[in-house]
């Protein structure tokens, strides 16, 4: 028995070693040796029982005459009677012995055990990646019970490295939409392995909202930056191309900045602009004088187009000098845009000083751009939980109406979600007739999410039309979450209160877009139906939808 147990341990440990081998890169093979020893020495004393007991259990188990994988059947039994490290040893043994046809059932067994799934997926890819691909994407019914995402993830990480042609052909030739969704993964791997092929795939497969790592692009570009730029232009792929152009620009600027800019200046469009901006920024950071000379000597159109990134970089070192250069060399919208660039650069280094710089400027389009640049840096981003700093609000209050409007255009959404209370306070106190009307609606809704009464109270303090409209938005939000309370509040308003009608109409307009609008309207009191009909009639809705909603509101 002792001999038998030792044999099992050796086999199992070998399996563990093999599995670790699948999971780790080849060069780390020697690292699996200690793992083997650890596995042997950590085997619990109870392990022999499970091996011996297995035979007895097998005899008791019902016989599956149509067993498509005796290996999986065996493993299932083994796992049901074991625990801890022993279970792992059984797993590894099965994975080691498995043929492609065994893997679907093994994978189903591995549900909820991501490590086992990963081990078996890597082994499956090694044995027959095409079989795994077919299993995952041939028929939705066959996928039932499989840890689909884990298997697909392992497949598309390993397969393009092992056999890129096969992986690309499989994904490119499939009708399966599920498979097409994994193209991004394969293209990403390919960008790392073979930049041109990866970028071409991203373009051919319309992968446009994803930015892969640019490490490989940075190594590829210096060899022949013009070819790299031309290749990227020929294979546009949205955000990835944008990042690639920026990377190429940086690398090209390190070698031959002037030819890079001459090339970029003749390439209109987003990618040409990205290349030019990245090149000029890098050159300016490395050699301000040469970059300035080149730009000053450029034709007006090129100078206008490229001044903003140039002075943005310069302003990080010397904002005053960069600003002076703008005033001497630019005019009109190019001046405004470049001044925005100066302040953006200055704000990177010293936000307070940049804000002061803006405060000291005369009202103008340039100041509005500069104010927007400061605001982007100073106000919280969309996902932030941080409150807006009071100094920022005070600074905003000191700006002219055009600049303040430009700032609000930039930060309204993020401000309203990160710190609606301070935005509400600002709007209530603002005398700026340029505040966009939707600002009041947005903040009213955000306030109502937390405290509807407070939101409505805030709206009542706004000038008449704005107050009614913002209050209506707050009420709609309230009615959606707490219909009874909201309706009770509305019904208790005096009949002369203008909010009764306006808020009701606002709620109906909001409700009309709900997927269950018809059911809700049908449940309304008869007295409200006529008023709701009037509102729905005036709304811009698809005709069939409007008819359906009006239909349920017909007098009963």
């Amino acid at each position, binding site marked *: 028995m002792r001999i038998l147990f030792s044999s099992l341990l050796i086999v199992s440990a070998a399996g563990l070693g093999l599995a670790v081998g699948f999971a780790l890169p080849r060069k780390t093979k020697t690292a699996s040796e200690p793992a083997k020893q650890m596995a042997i020495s950590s085997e619990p004393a109870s392990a022999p029982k499970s091996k011996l007991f297995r035979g007895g259990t097998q005899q008791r188990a019902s016989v599956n005459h149509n067993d498509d994988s005796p290996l999986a059947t065996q493993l299932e039994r083994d796992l049901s009677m074991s625990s801890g490290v022993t279970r792992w040893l059984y797993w590894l043994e099965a994975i080691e012995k498995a043929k492609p046809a065994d893997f679907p059932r093994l994978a189903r067994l591995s549900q909820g055990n991501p490590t086992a799934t990963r081990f078996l997926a890597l082994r499956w890819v090694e044995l027959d990646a095409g079989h795994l691909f077919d299993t995952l994407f041939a028929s939705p019914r066959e996928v*039932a019970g499989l840890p689909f995402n884990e298997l697909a993830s392992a497949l598309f990480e390993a397969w393009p490295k092992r056999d890129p042609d096969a992986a690309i052909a499989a994904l490119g030739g499939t009708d399966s939409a*599920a498979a*097409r969704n994994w193209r991004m993964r394969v293209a990403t791997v390919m960008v790392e392995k073979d930049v041109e092929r990866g970028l071409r795939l991203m373009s051919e497969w319309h992968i446009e909202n994803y930015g892969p790592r640019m490490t490989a692009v940075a190594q590829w570009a210096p060899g022949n930056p013009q070819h790299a730029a031309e290749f990227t232009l020929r294979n546009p792929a949205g955000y990835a191309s944008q990042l690639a152009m920026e990377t190429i620009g940086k690398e090209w600027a390190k070698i031959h900045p002037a030819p890079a800019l001459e090339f970029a200046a003749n390439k*209109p469009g*987003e990618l040409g602009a990205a290349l030019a901006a990245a090149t000029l920024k890098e050159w300016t950071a490395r050699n301000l004088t040469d970059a300035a000379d080149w730009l000053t000597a450029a034709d007006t159109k090129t100078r206008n187009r490229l001044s903003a990134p140039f002075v943005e970089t310069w302003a990080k070192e010397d904002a005053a000098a960069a600003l002076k250069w703008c005033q001497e060399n630019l005019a009109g919208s*190019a001046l405004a845009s470049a001044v925005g660039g100066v302040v953006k650069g200055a704000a990177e280094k010293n936000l307070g000083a940049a804000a002061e710089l803006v405060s000291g400027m005369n009202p103008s389009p340039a100041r509005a751009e500069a104010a927007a640049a400061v605001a982007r840096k100073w106000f919280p981003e969309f996902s932030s939980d941080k409150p807006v700093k009071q100094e920022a609000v005070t600074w905003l209050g000191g700006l002219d109406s055009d600049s303040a409007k430009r700032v609000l255009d930039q930060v309204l959404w993020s401000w309203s979600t990160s710190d609606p209370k301070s935005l509400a306070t600002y709007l209530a106190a603002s005398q700026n007739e340029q505040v966009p009307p939707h600002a009041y609606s947005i903040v009213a809704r955000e306030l109502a999410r937390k405290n509807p009464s407070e939101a409505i109270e805030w709206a009542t303090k706004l000038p008449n039309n704005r107050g009614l409209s913002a209050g209506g938005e707050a009420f709609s939000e309230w009615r959606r979450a707490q219909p009874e309370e909201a309706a009770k509040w509305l019904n208790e308003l005096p009949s002369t209160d203008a909010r009764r009608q306006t808020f009701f109409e606002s709620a109906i307009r909001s409700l009309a877009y709900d*997927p*269950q609008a018809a059911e809700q309207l049908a449940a309304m009191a008869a007295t409200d139906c006529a008023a709701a009909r009037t509102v729905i009639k005036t709304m811009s809705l*698809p005709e*069939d939808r409007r008819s359906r909603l009006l239909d349920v509101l017909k007098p009963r």
Partner: protein
Amino acid sequence: MILAEGGLVSARESAEALKGPNRDQALAGVAQAWAKSDLEGTIAWAKALPEGVDRDEIIRTALIRKAAIDPAEALELAGIVPSGGRHAYGSSTTGARILVEASKTDFDATVAWLAAHPGRFGHEDLMGISRGVTERLNANAAEFLTTHAANGSLAALLPAIGSAILNDASGQRAPVWDWRKTQPSGDAVNALKQQVLNSAGYQDPALAMRLVADLPRTADGDAQLKSLAGSLLNGGSMLHRFDKLLAEAPERLRQPLIDTAFQHLRADSLDDPQRWVARLSLLPETSRAAGTESIARAWAEQTPEEAAGWVTSLPASEGRDRAVAAIAATWAGKDARGAAQWVATMTPGTERDRSVGSLVLAVAEKYPREAWDWALSINDPSERDRAAAHAARMMAMRDPVTAGQWIDAGPFTPEAKAHLRSGLDRVRGSGELRHSPLPGR
């Protein structure tokens, strides 16, 4: 929560005695543990907590916990607290958080409850069942949809289906599309069709192109085609796809795609104005004026001086007039002074009249006096009356007496004066000009 499960009373006392930032967390832990056995008591206790505690959030925590045991009871009570959460933050509202737990516990019962209580949860809330919907769509989309269409719960599932097919069930667009072809038309089925078209257009243009063949050759089908074109270009943010999409588009989609591209031109999507000028020839003759105007507006948002330079090179036409007016309006919105200087250089005629009209509309709120003077310089009577009426209304908001005097002294017919005056009657308010003046005409 672990402490609370051990001894509720002492845990509650400890949590209530806490000070500082961990207090709400501790109180929430108590609420979670307590809610399992006595939700009503937990809510009453939470409502009585002192000022400074986020009582609504404590109640939410209790409801979410209850949803894991008794989804229906938690769902019934979801409306006792405001919606909470943040705009566009997935599953952050009260309803969504309760639905996440409820659907994990008993998906079918949760959906049945939603169908029986229309409108109790809004679009954002219903995202809470997205995970369950995704799993079921991936397992068997047709079976899932058939079941819920039959029991009347499909409408309640629509927001979650829309999210699922944009995310982890994006592979199910084609099966969902095929399924809806077998169904009679209706609100939910139509909405589902639109969801597939929108998401395929955005994420899977190849599939979107194939779906075109299934769109009926009716007014509805044409509207769906336009909508699909909008999704393929993602409302204009993916105009860089245009050439490639046009090359791959089936014949029926080509024109809607071209029209939509021009309609969606904006400063940030107009990568190369000259390329769009060249594409004007793709538009039918009747749409070229509008296309020229679109280019002009987008270009003027970027660099109005360049746009102005281009438009003066165009031959006299409706398109040129509209483009000039669009540049004037856009430029005035960014830089009223620069726009006024440009308009001042124009020779009299339709183009100038339209441009001045645009300038007046753009600047009158801020510079009513200058806008009035500009309006009076328009030769075309109807264009002049329209611009003057706007300037007078803006002035009347600040100084109704002056606005009235302007109208009396203006070069208008008695009928036009009466019309202008009637416009002022609707305006109330007063104020002073606070801006430095614009250059004159």
